[in-house]
């Protein structure tokens, strides 16, 4: 069966759209249908055919199912851009949802749910209600998913119309496919809601486990994934559940198998009988092994999951290491993951065979794989003490092959082996030294230099060896320079003869006077001072015993591991990251429900506030403003134990800082502005004479909300209070707002200390900060401010170049996010760097590339998250490309906003 639809793609000459318009309105059915196909073809290749909206919608009323589907498809694509015209389609939708043909009923309700236009959504409710109770299961299963669609567009509507209850009823439907879709829909709705909507009772559990037997394979996955949230009451119940789920391990669908494995692992936590646990482990091993014969992409998912499973339950696959041996034709991503698991499963029993494999891999062609294999040998040496010697001899054999990158990688791991087993294997140093000249990678060089320094007393010509590196000292990367510096000092301390003495002069000179790397310089100065004041102390410091390093193959921390295991086989278990780290929501959901919560919060908080308002009212009677602010200070500190507020009374501070320290500025004193004027957020016209200007600022490592109140009304305003709605960064007031009664025409400035991560809002990161302010005389004022990430940048965000490079490399490329900031500009390199440093964005390095300046910078964001920044742009030309690499790329959108502001 093959079509010949490609003819619809052939472009007609001029006037395509008018021509199509004419054909769409043709009285001949075939011509009409062909025209719609042409329209869809045009849409498929990305042409804008939205102008034909009315004409296409006119074709909707047809008996021809194929044509109808095409028109529906068109609607899904263009209804958003033509919301007013989309209403034209509603009648047909509603009619179709009552068609005698269940295919058409389902199609209508399925399509309506995909059209995210408010006006259409309103009309969806009645058809949906009917379809949820339709006689045909095909319609019901489509309607069940449609509830989740509607919830995504308008959650309130779903709840008001009682769809959730109907959906819950569908769990007891007699058709398994309907049950499965209802479960999928409920699970999704639960995910976005904070209220318990889909609670799995032991009753639902039993029902769903029974439904499992009859579901389609995909439905089984929905059900197993939803049920894995269920916490069994005791070991007996857990065993019962496991017994019902175990047969799924025999299913041909890998997703069913993995979801069943997840559920069994979850329940095993509760099972106390070691026999049962052992038996379950035995049962899970063969299905896990079989996954390795699946398609490579599925193998990859399976391997990432097995990696987690063996960290939790090493016994399951302890005897199966051979199945992880790489096949010649495995894709590289499969080989890499297999290697990881081989290291985890390596034991004294199988190490000889494993080493043979690693050795084989180390002679393959793919450089990255070879390097990883060499590193794997080292990791096994560190992990298995008794096998360390065999591992080393394999490494030495590999070094003898003299393939450059193998040698370098081997030296890097041997350094780690030395750190794990100090004073054990130095005999091989001579062999290592033979390869000295071939080293050209910084990490390998640094490792070799470390070895020479550490064992200087046993290497006869250590000074010569080090000296050979010294010549190129200024050109070496920071990592190598640092190692050279330390190694030379070690050498000198161990062999304080003339040669080393001269060397140390050269190195210290190089590392202090002739470098612009602060880390290197600092380290050199410390050594210098140590050596010149107390050489014995220097020995104690520099030659101190180092902590022994350990095996890092089970590196995932246990609570994270449990969370990841609960997410088998989702993306979370593939990334080895909790879902919050990558799940994103693009569209802005309607803010209505939030608003409501917000008002509630304000209202309820009021009832808790009266005592404090009484306090401030009492204080307001004090006449002298200065005395007043002094008097307030201690109380304020007590009320807001924010680490920010300095305990010292205001008068001790500089005069112009008074205004910046939570104190008030009375009207008659000029509101000493210590920076650019604050943006006006509540204009006089809106605030019935009250104007509020505010901005988030960072002072001495703390975040404040800097506010300016100006009263141009005719009355005294007092009893100011402030509240922040939930926001992405969870900013909230750390104390109470301190504003003295405002006389008509007066203004007051205040700095409100803030805390972060107090009331974090769910959903995608955004910059909205909603603020409510009230006083005793006026209604509550709401205004919006913008969160700026840069106020979170902490003072200790500076990174040395080597550290920057290392961090950059250690993060996967998926953690890098790039954005063009068209409005940003670099006016002048130095000024920009200085300006950014003031905002705690620190310069790391720069280079030029094809007339563009590239700046590398670092900063430390909220919760100490490092941000590695690359700015590319031409001096004086607007438009800067900004890239950021960070362990939490989800902050990127906020970050770009911040950079945009900083570079304006």
């Amino acid at each position: 069966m093959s079509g010949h639809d490609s003819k619809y793609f052939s472009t007609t000459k001029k006037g395509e759209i008018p021509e199509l318009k004419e054909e769409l309105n043709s009285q001949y059915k075939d011509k009409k249908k062909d025209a719609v196909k042409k329209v869809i073809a045009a849409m498929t290749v990305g042409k804008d055919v939205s102008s034909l909206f009315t004409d296409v919608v006119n074709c909707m009323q047809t008996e021809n199912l194929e044509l109808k589907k095409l028109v529906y498809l068109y609607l899904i694509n263009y209804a958003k851009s033509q919301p007013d015209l989309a209403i034209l389609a509603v009648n047909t939708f509603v009619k179709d949802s009552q068609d005698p043909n269940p295919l058409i009923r389902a199609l209508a309700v399925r399509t309506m749910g995909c059209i995210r236009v408010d006006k259409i959504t309103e009309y969806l409710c009645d058809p949906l209600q009917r379809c949820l109770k339709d006689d045909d299961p095909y319609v019901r299963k489509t309607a069940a998913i449609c509830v989740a669609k509607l919830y995504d567009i308008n959650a309130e509507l779903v709840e008001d119309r009682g769809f959730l209850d109907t959906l819950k009823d569908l769990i007891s439907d007699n058709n398994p496919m309907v049950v499965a879709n209802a479960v999928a829909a409920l699970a999704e709705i639960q995910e976005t809601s904070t209220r318990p909507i889909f609670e799995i009772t032991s009753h639902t559990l039993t029902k769903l486990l029974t439904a499992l037997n009859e579901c389609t394979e995909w439905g089984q996955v929905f059900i197993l994934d939803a049920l894995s949230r269920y916490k069994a009451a005791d070991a007996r119940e857990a065993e019962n559940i496991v017994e019902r789920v175990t047969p799924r391990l025999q299913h041909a669908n890998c997703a069913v198998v993995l979801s069943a494995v997840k559920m069994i692992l979850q329940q095993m936590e509760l099972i106390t009988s070691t026999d049962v646990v052992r038996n379950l482990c035995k049962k899970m091993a063969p299905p896990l092994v079989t996954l390795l014969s699946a398609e490579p992409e599925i193998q990859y998912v399976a391997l990432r999951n097995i990696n987690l499973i063996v960290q939790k339950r090493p016994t399951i696959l302890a005897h199966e290491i051979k199945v992880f041996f790489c096949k010649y034709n495995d894709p590289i991503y499969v080989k890499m993951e297999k290697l990881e698991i081989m290291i985890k499963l390596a034991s004294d029993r199988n190490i000889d065979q494993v080493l043979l494999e690693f050795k084989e891999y180390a002679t393959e062609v793919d450089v990255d794989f070879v390097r990883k294999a060499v590193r794997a040998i080292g990791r096994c040496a560190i992990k298995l003490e008794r096998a360390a010697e065999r591992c080393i001899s394999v490494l030495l054999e590999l070094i003898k092959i003299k393939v450059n990158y193998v040698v370098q990688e081997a030296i890097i791991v041997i350094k780690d082996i030395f750190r794990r087993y100090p004073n054990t294997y130095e005999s091989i140093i001579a062999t290592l030294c033979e390869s000295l000249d071939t080293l050209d990678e910084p990490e390998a060089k640094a490792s070799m230099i470390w070895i020479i320094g550490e064992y200087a007393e046993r290497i006869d010509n250590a000074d010569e060896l080090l000296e050979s590196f010294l010549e190129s000292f200024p050109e070496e990367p920071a990592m190598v320079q640092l190692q050279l510096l330390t190694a030379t000092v070690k050498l000198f301390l161990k062999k304080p003869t003339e040669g080393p003495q001269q060397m140390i002069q050269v190195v210290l000179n190089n590392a202090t006077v002739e470098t612009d790397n602060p880390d290197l310089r600092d380290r050199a100065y410390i050594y210098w001072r140590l050596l010149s004041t107390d050489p014995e102390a220097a020995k104690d410091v520099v030659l101190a015993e180092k902590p022994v390093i350990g095996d890092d193959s089970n590196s995932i921390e246990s609570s994270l591991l449990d969370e990841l295991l609960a997410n088998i086989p989702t993306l979370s278990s593939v990334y080895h990251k909790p879902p919050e780290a990558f799940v994103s929501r693009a569209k802005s959901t309607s803010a209505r429900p939030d608003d409501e919560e917000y008002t509630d919060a304000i209202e309820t908080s009021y009832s808790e506030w009266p005592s404090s308002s009484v306090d401030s009212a009492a204080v307001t009677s004090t006449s002298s403003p200065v005395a007043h602010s002094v008097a307030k200070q201690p109380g304020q500190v007590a009320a807001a134990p924010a680490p920010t507020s300095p305990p010292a009374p205001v008068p001790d501070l500089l005069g112009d800082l008074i205004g910046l320290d939570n104190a008030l500025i009375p009207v008659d004193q000029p509101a000493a502005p210590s920076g650019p004027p604050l943006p006006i957020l509540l204009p006089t016209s809106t605030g019935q004479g009250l104007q509020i200007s505010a901005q988030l600022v960072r002072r001495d490592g703390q975040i404040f909300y800097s506010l300016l109140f100006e009263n141009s009304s005719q009355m005294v305003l007092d009893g100011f209070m402030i509240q922040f709605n939930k926001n992405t960064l969870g900013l909230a007031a750390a104390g109470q707002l301190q504003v003295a009664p405002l006389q008509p025409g007066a203004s007051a400035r205040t700095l409100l200390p803030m805390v972060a991560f107090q009331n974090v809002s769910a959903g995608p990161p955004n910059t909205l900060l909603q603020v409510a302010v009230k006083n005793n005389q006026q209604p509550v004022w709401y205004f919006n401010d913008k969160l700026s990430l840069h106020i979170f940048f902490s003072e200790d965000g500076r990174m040395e170049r080597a550290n920057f490079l290392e961090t950059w490399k250690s993060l996967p490329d998926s953690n890098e996010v790039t954005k063009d900031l068209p409005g940003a500009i670099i006016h002048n390199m130095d000024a920009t760097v200085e300006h950014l440093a003031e905002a705690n964005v620190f310069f790391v390095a720069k280079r030029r590339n094809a007339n563009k300046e590239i700046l590398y910078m670092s900063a430390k964001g909220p919760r100490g998250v490092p941000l590695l920044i690359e700015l590319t742009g031409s001096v004086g030309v607007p438009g800067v490309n900004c890239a950021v690499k960070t362990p939490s790329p989800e902050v990127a959108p906020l970050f770009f906003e911040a950079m945009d502001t900083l570079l304006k």
Partner: protein
Amino acid sequence: MAGAVSALFLLDIKGRVLVWRDYRGDVSAVQAERFFTKLLEQEVDPDLHDPVVYDNGVTYMFIQHNNVFLMTAARQNCNAASIFLFLHRVVDVFKHYFEELEEESLRDNFVVVYELLDEMMDFGYPQYTEAKILSEFIKTDAYRMEVTQRPPMAVTNAVSWRSEGIKYKKNEVFLDVVESVNILVNTNGQIIRSDVVGALKMRTYLSGMPECKLGLNDRVLLEAQGRSTKGKAIDLDDIKFHQCVRLARFENDRTISFIPPDGSFDLMTYRLSTQVKPLIWVEAQVERHSRSRIELLVKARSQFKLIYSKLHNCSTATNVEIEIPVPSDATNPNIRTSMGSASYAPEKDALVWKVKSFPGGKEYMVRAEFSLPSITAEESAPDKKAPVRVKFEIPYFTVSGIQVRYLKIIEKSGYQALPWVRYITMAGEYELRLM
């Protein structure tokens, strides 16, 4: 735990969108472009050549088939295993419809493609992927007759893989037991891993809703039934069943009972990890003479004789093909064989030796000589160390000794159906590393 994909893209080999279906309205066609840019970056850095790609809040999962990428974009924590499997099923469905899935067939059938994408997935959740049933109500132009009045019952039935009312004049079942031998032999001649992956491939031409029951010489079952198991029972390590098999029943009493789909499908697959003697053993001696000449002496020995061959006294391997790697710069081949034919395949950097019929217990040889360029690059990359690879088929023979003891077919109309059973063993990933 819930998670759905946002859209499914079908892209051509250059990353241009052929067809895409937006399921959740939270990604755009630009996503395809971004994905492809990321993919191109990967080629520079093979370390990242994963089938899962993350970029700016969106996860891309993709597979490639011919000149088409099938890719999903997701913003949620969806079930990765399920999505990849779904993508492979989409390939199967398209292949069922268009014979081959490639750029051209997608363009030629874009209307049906849209219809199928709409039916197979809803709101990013996989729904229905039974090609045979789908083609009952989604038809290509050539087959489109009139408006289908309703979806086939099977779409929502517990038996979702078979429609009712199927009729055949002659009711027949063909059952092929196919075993693939995977083996990996180390340079020192040691077998480091070997397993057998078997499949029971069925083709059914049965009327109505037949109930089938399959009996194997499975040791666990026979022992449970208290029968003697000496000599002929086998242990299967891991069994996977087609969704038509009642798993709870199997778990209960090891009975394999099912209502089969119509046409061909894999009823079950199984795996045995018991060490098997390599059926064909290959030894290769490679001698390099004075940097300009290389000599190969390859011996192949068939090591199967009378094991488990029920019908024939002596099994014969057919279509044996042995691939021996040679240096990529080898020229002027000079090849002699004691049996079959051998030729130099420069595109594979290998000597390919084919023997049509290779009886058990025999040994054959091939000698080959190649010239090498006398000048080599000073620091040439190490040679690819490809293993010797072997392909073969041995009919009427299984390594495991699995036997179909019976296949009962009961349908309420009471017809007699004939089951035909065949056995065959093939080489799977059969690799011998060279010295």
